[in-house]
């Protein structure tokens, strides 16, 4: 019977082509909205979470307390991420540079107050920290400063990143892998050695063995980094973990944020445009360097993040350092929460579209019952039971819902593929792919059939209740 009903319903849908398509279109628009918004939303969430995963959920970042707040420092906020073009001589946005201003993470508390009001935090003693806090395995400091750099053929202001040896050993991924393309990495802490980002090397026109001057001290160029673009390509090939979309991100975004670690790295430094000097050298050469920097620590597996954070805070107080620890887990949870809220709002909007489609369907079914009253009378006269008449209309509307659902799924899928291309760069997460879970697909198909059937339920019930004689007299 069901099969016969489906045949009859299809026949009916086909014989009322224009109306059927308009009705289906209503459902289709709703489903398209639901599918594209949800798949993009899930895609964004997964892309963002993947970046945190690449950094490592066992990482805690200790940032100096500044006017900018921790969030912008650790999440690549405007205070840090935006300033990649330091190869040009002019410092950003009218601020005059004293070399220690950025290098010490001493930042004006508000844009209008100028360089006068600064807070200087003392550097974290990582050895003491490792000793004092149980559940930590690695700790390292990383500073950045802008320095005047003179090369053989060009000079200018460049960002100098100052990782400690232990930092380089423990957290290379935070510096994009710190992959050397030419030369070697640092050999000792007593000589003035500099490793240069790919683009800076090109801009300055220097190679291995050249000597450059940084803030008055001479440094030997011992290594040039691979550009972050090629690093991201290599790493994705090596790990096989990252999808196409993520690998392409490096190409699309200035400075290359190909690796997952880049989210954090962007907050710290930009490997292509930066120069790298060991923190041990920087501290002994430039006295102000002592007060700089972030501290990155890694928890032991199984360590409780809450306990570790409390111990870190206590130790920081003991050391007299004005800094706050933020765990990657916390950041990820916060972002996930926010994204979840946004997704809920988007899904609700989409659901409204779906409901509107359902109302359109109800209207069509209601009109259809009116138009087919005579036909209902005929069916009843030849022995159709009330339930069969009802089922016929339910299958009819359910099928229209389902067709709308299938088409909406396809259209929504296409839309979100194009949408992510545009959205990725705009959101700053590189390009990413929409995610179509089985739940989404099955859910949408079931929901569209159910919405179709539900919208048809009342008209169908009315149809089934018609008195056959009165129905036959209709027209």
């Amino acid at each position, binding site marked *: *019977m069901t099969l016969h009903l489906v045949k009859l319903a299809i026949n009916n849908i086909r014989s009322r082509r224009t109306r059927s398509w308009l009705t289906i279109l209503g459902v289709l628009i709703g489903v398209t909205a639901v599918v594209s918004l949800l798949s993009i939303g899930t895609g964004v969430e997964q892309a963002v979470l993947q970046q945190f995963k690449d950094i490592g959920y066992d990482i805690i970042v200790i940032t100096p307390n500044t006017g900018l707040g921790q969030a912008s420092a650790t999440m690549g906020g405007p205070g840090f991420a935006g300033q990649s073009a330091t190869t040009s001589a002019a410092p950003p946005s009218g601020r005059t540079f004293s070399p220690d201003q950025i290098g010490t993470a001493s930042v004006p508390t508000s844009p209008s107050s100028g360089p006068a009001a600064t807070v200087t935090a003392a550097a974290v003693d990582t050895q003491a920290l490792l000793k004092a806090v149980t559940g930590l395995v690695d700790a390292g400091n990383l500073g950045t400063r802008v320095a005047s750099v003179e090369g053989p053929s060009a000079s200018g202001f460049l960002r100098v990143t100052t990782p400690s040896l232990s930092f380089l050993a423990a957290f290379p991924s935070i510096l994009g892998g710190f992959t050397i393309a030419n030369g070697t990495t640092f050999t000792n802490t007593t000589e003035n050695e500099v490793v240069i980002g790919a683009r800076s090397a090109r801009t300055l026109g220097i190679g291995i063995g050249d000597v450059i001057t940084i803030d008055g001290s001479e440094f030997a160029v011992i290594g040039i980094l691979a550009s972050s673009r090629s690093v991201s390509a290599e790493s994705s090939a090596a790990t096989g973990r990252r999808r196409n979309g993520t690998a392409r991100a490096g190409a699309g975004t200035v400075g290359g944020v190909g690796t997952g670690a880049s989210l954090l790295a962007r907050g710290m430094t930009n490997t292509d445009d930066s120069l790298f000097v060991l923190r041990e050298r920087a501290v002994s050469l430039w006295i102000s360097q002592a007060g700089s920097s972030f501290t990155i620590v890694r928890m032991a597996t199984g360590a409780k993040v809450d306990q570790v954070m409390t111990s870190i805070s206590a130790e920081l107080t003991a050391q007299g350092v004005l800094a706050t620890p933020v765990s990657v887990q916390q950041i990820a949870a916060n972002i996930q929460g926010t994204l979840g809220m946004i997704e809920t709002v988007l899904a609700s909007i989409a659901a409204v579209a779906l409901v509107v489609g359902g109302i359109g369907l109800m209207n069509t079914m209601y009109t259809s019952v009116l138009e087919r009253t005579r036909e209902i009378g*005929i069916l*009843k006269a030849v*022995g159709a*039971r*009330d339930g069969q008449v009802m089922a016929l209309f339910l299958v009819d509307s359910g099928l229209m819902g389902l067709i709308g659902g299938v088409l909406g799924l396809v259209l929504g899928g296409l839309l979100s593929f194009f949408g992510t291309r545009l959205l990725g760069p705009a959101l700053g997460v590189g390009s990413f792919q929409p995610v179509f879970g089985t739940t989404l697909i099955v859910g949408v198909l079931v929901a569209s059939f159910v919405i179709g059937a539900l919208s048809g339920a009342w008209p169908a019930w009315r149809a089934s209740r018609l008195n056959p004689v009165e129905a*036959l007299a209709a027209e």
Partner: protein
Amino acid sequence: MITFHDVYKTYLMGETRVEALQGVTFELPERRLAVIMGPSGSGKSTLLHLAGCLDTPTHGRVNYNGTDLGALSSRGRADFRAQSVGFVFQKFNLIPNLTALRNVEIPLLLQNKPAAEARKRALDALDAVELRDRMHHRPSKLSGGEQQRVAIARALINDPKLILADEPTGNLDTRTGQRILLLLKGLVEKGKAVVVVTHNPEIAASANTLVLLRDGKVESFSTSHGKEGLV
């Protein structure tokens, strides 16, 4: 086989009550041709609807082979219409967007018969009304006479014992109408009880039973027993 016992049917049109049938009592035999006549509005259609279980009497009893039709549930009435009776209407009442074949198949499909069986029986029924070559046509592509023959095929498809025809020639020209009436008369030989509402005096003359209605009452009821009454 079918008996009306003191049957009343009252329609309510807002405030006004229309007494379509007012105490109708008679009995129609099996395997015979019955003709119901009477002026327009005398209650002929109403009577046929009650006999075919399309409607229920306001008062009184309609019995079919011992079953009180008025006591049936909605589902019981549907099943009665499906299995025991075949209806032929003045306006043919075919489903416009289905082919002749599909129209004939519908009652079987509603009975959950397998598609192959439904197809075979529908073709046989179309053969019986000589319309097999028209089976893929929609009603709009068929002449009135052809549509009515499709309707007769549909009425026969479940092999009911009772065929009810309400002015089946009312929308047809005389010649075509004659052919339809002959077709219906022929069904009596196949063991059906056929009840026809018509104004055609010839078929009235050949009927076994003639019921004359006026103002919702039986004005005359005549039965011709014996062989000469058989068609």
